[in-house]
């Protein structure tokens, strides 16, 4: 057995703010050998990133290691002098951040940053930084390295920036790399390439990697070992293949089942109720942290914290009823009512939108075709998915359909009525017929309005049922439907979690009981458990109100789960469309194929080999 490069023994991190202290990470034990990848998986708030920050000793104010040791190559990382740590960080321990754009300094060119970094980590005698930079760029398959050095971060795509950061991270041949959700902010196809690239570089240098992600499927594809964290404590820790194919802890199993599949028959999603307990609750908690959400919990689970018990070779789980875990099965796939009549609710013919630069009496305006000749129909009660990468025109299409933008050419009809003109009358008609759920709950809810006022905003516009009483009643109804407590009506958006905000976002669109919803990436950026809750909610609401939906997403497995039909968009055009099952099982267009192979397969034993799109469909 090789000597571990990084090992934690009984590591505890606490937040010491104020008079009380709260445990953030509890009793962490792991060891990472050179050349191995450790995947850290869990919902947001599980403490994944905190581990990365503990290693770099960049803990937030008021947080401190209170117990245990953390050793890097035989040196104690916690107690070491700051000077020694500075020497290690960025050289022996490298980082790849979540947001590639924030990882680079926007006012310095790539070359300047590369030069600074290379000088810091030291160059071979007689080697110029420029030659070295080009060599490192080549290693991460970045073309036109010399031109790239002159560029500034904002001139590059997210994928390019992430590659540059990977090149910088591996330039010093680090012994340990910490990648904190390095692909979350990127498109699927780029995600696949970035992950492959990290794997390739890691093999070249024999680097140990800590790969932090919320995606269990992705982690199991690339990691040697996985640690599943729940509320700051490991729930399960073991070899990736074993852990993914036969999860021992109910939490791992639930996470796996909360994620929709990308192949095979569709199955229901396991809905993890509620949320992870907060720090305050955890401190008082006696029993298993997961007990309140666990389908297998019994009386004994709430009595004492379960120890991490061995399950198999190198495989441990903190559960006293491990043998019951395989009994957790997903509910049967029940999509509710699908398209019942063939009557088209929404049709769009040859829809085109050209954006031009801001108005000015001087100078030429440049234009860009965001949506090009798109035909679309949406039947009653039908969910249609639109997939594609960022910049493919999905969101522009959504804005045209709901009337936030006017098409340059083409025709839109709602319920047989032509609404292309988008005048006063058309707007009024649209208001009761089609509504939109926005992508970013942060930006979609006015931070200065109370939830009750947000969800009944439509009444304010029409003046109908606009008395305080009627609005409060309607708000209570809507909150009940979307599964929020009634007292949420008086809160402000900042007091809700991301998932709750997205529910409010849905409730606002439902206020006038529209026939069509347009949902733009409404589950991206949410935890899988929250995502499953929301998808389930949408299906339930369809059962009750019978609306149809245009569901825009970059996540193919979600679209596969939810939608009856799918349209694949590339550079403003629809390149493939058809029934979801057919398209996903047998994609015809090379772009659809490349999108599908970019998703890690459900079966861990399958080789994940994302294929590059063919010429002409270059994704980056």
């Amino acid at each position, binding site marked *: 057995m090789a000597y571990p490069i990084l090992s934690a023994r009984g590591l505890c991190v606490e937040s010491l703010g104020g008079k009380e202290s709260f445990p953030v990470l509890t009793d962490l034990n792991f060891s990472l050998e050179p050349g191995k990848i450790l995947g850290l998986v869990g919902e947001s708030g599980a403490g994944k990133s905190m581990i990365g920050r503990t290693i770099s000793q960049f803990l937030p104010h008021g947080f401190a290691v209170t117990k245990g040791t953390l050793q890097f190559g035989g040196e104690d990382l916690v107690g070491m002098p700051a000077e020694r740590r500075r020497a290690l960080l960025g050289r022996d321990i490298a980082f790849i951040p979540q947001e590639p754009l924030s990882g680079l300094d926007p006012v310095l060119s790539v070359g300047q940053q590369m030069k600074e970094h290379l000088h810091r980590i030291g160059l071979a005698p007689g080697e110029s930084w420029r030659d070295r930079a080009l060599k490192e760029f080549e290693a991460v398959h970045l073309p036109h390295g010399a031109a790239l050095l002159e560029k500034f971060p904002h001139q590059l795509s997210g994928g390019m920036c992430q590659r540059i950061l990977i090149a910088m991270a591996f330039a010093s041949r680090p012994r340990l790399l910490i990648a904190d959700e390095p692909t979350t902010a990127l498109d699927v196809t780029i995600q696949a390439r970035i992950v492959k690239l990290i794997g390739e570089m890691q093999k070249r240098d024999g680097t140990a990697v800590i790969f932090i992600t919320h995606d269990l499927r992705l982690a199991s594809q690339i990691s040697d070992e996985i640690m599943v964290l729940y509320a700051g404590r490991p729930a399960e820790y073991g070899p990736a293949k074993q852990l993914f194919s036969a999860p021992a802890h109910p939490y791992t199993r639930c996470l796996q089942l909360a994620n929709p599949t990308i192949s095979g028959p569709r199955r229901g999603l396991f809905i993890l109720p509620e949320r992870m307990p907060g720090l305050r609750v955890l401190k008082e908690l006696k029993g298993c942290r997961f007990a309140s959400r666990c389908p297998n919990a019994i009386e004994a689970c709430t009595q004492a914290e379960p120890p991490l018990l061995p399950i198999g070779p190198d495989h441990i789980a903190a559960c006293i009823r491990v043998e019951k875990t395989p009994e957790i099965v997903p509910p049967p796939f029940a999509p509710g009512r699908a398209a019942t009549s063939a009557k088209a609710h929404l049709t769009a013919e040859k829809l085109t939108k050209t954006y031009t630069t801001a108005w000015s009496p001087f100078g030429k305006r440049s234009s860009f075709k965001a949506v090009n000749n798109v035909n679309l129909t949406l039947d009653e009660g039908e969910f249609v998915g639109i997939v594609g990468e960022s910049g493919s025109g999905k969101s522009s299409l959504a804005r045209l359909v709901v009337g936030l933008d006017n098409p340059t050419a083409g025709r839109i009809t709602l319920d047989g009525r032509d609404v292309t003109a988008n005048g006063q009358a058309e707007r009024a008609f649209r208001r009761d017929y089609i509504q939109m759920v*926005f992508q970013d709950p942060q930006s979609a809810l006015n*931070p200065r309005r109370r939830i009750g006022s947000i969800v009944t905003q439509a009444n304010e*516009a029409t003046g109908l049922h606009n008395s305080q009483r009627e609005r409060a009643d309607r708000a209570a109804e809507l909150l009940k439907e979307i599964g929020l407590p009634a007292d949420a009506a008086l809160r402000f958006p900042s007091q809700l979690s991301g998932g709750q905000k997205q529910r409010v976002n849905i409730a*606002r669109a439902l206020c006038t009981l529209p026939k069509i919803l347009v949902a733009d990436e409404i589950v991206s950026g949410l935890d899988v458990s929250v995502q499953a809750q929301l998808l389930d909610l949408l299906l339930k609401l369809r059962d009750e109100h019978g609306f149809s939906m245009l569901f825009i997403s970059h996540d193919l497995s979600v679209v596969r789960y939810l939608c009856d039909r799918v349209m694949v968009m590339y550079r403003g055009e629809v390149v493939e469309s058809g029934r979801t099952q057919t398209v996903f099982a047998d994609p015809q267009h090379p772009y659809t194929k490349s999108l599908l192979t970019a998703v890690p397969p459900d079966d861990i034993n399958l080789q994940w080999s994302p294929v590059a799109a063919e010429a002409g469909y270059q994704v980056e």
Partner: protein
Amino acid sequence: MRPIPLWLKSGRVQTGLVIIAILAICALFAPWLAPNDPNEQDLLAILAPPAWADGGDALYPLGTDSLGRCVLSRLIFSARVALTVAFSASVGAMIIGAFFAHVAGYFGGWVDWLISRIVEIWLSFPPVILSLILMVGLGTGLRNVVLAIILVDWTRFCRVLRSEVIVLRRRDYVSAAQLVGFSHWRTITREILPGTMPLLITLMSLEMGVAIIVEAILSFVGMSVGSETPAWGQMIADARQNIYEAPFNMIAPILAIFFAVFGFNILGDGLRRTLDTRLTQTERT
């Protein structure tokens, strides 16, 4: 009981509010606070030094000017002009500036282009010269001073607020409001204005400081209120001839201006630090 709002806990805001409160008390209760009539001339005691200096008279705590008028009384009465101008000019400039900023930022396109260009042309005139020209055209008097300052300084509000409006305009909740059928007017007042309000209040308190300085400049060159109304700028102008014999006549109004502008600026700075959402977000991260 409701908790004390965050902005009131800031030391800067508290300091600013105390200073402004002192000035406001001086202005409101001037006839009772001032030891003498500010315009009464005591020709037997011209250029009297302050009470604590040799030859000072307890009747005139800060001495007298070249016409034998009580400096302290004039200082106190001048606060009236200063505060009237500060409040009404900044409110007026705020209303005009905010209106055009919201129209430009919300509608965009040629409306935005036109308003922005007008603001740019307006800003290319030196503000003091512009207000002097306006005063020549309008004639002296308190109302015209306020009007001149409003006409010069609305552009300040317009420019800064417009960019904030553009940021808020792109928020999805503004689109959502349009989708549920809000009129433009309602969208602006109910969705955008609450978001720009913190910046608006901050700018207004800074503008009050600016208005005091502009008024002082105008009254220094005799283009503000008439000579029968005391004003700080006028006092500085009057003290110029006797600057060597009675330096305190000059120092006192300068300190008063400094004190008032400092109060408004520190209030504005404190408000900006606590109310500006962008700043608090970066502080949080």
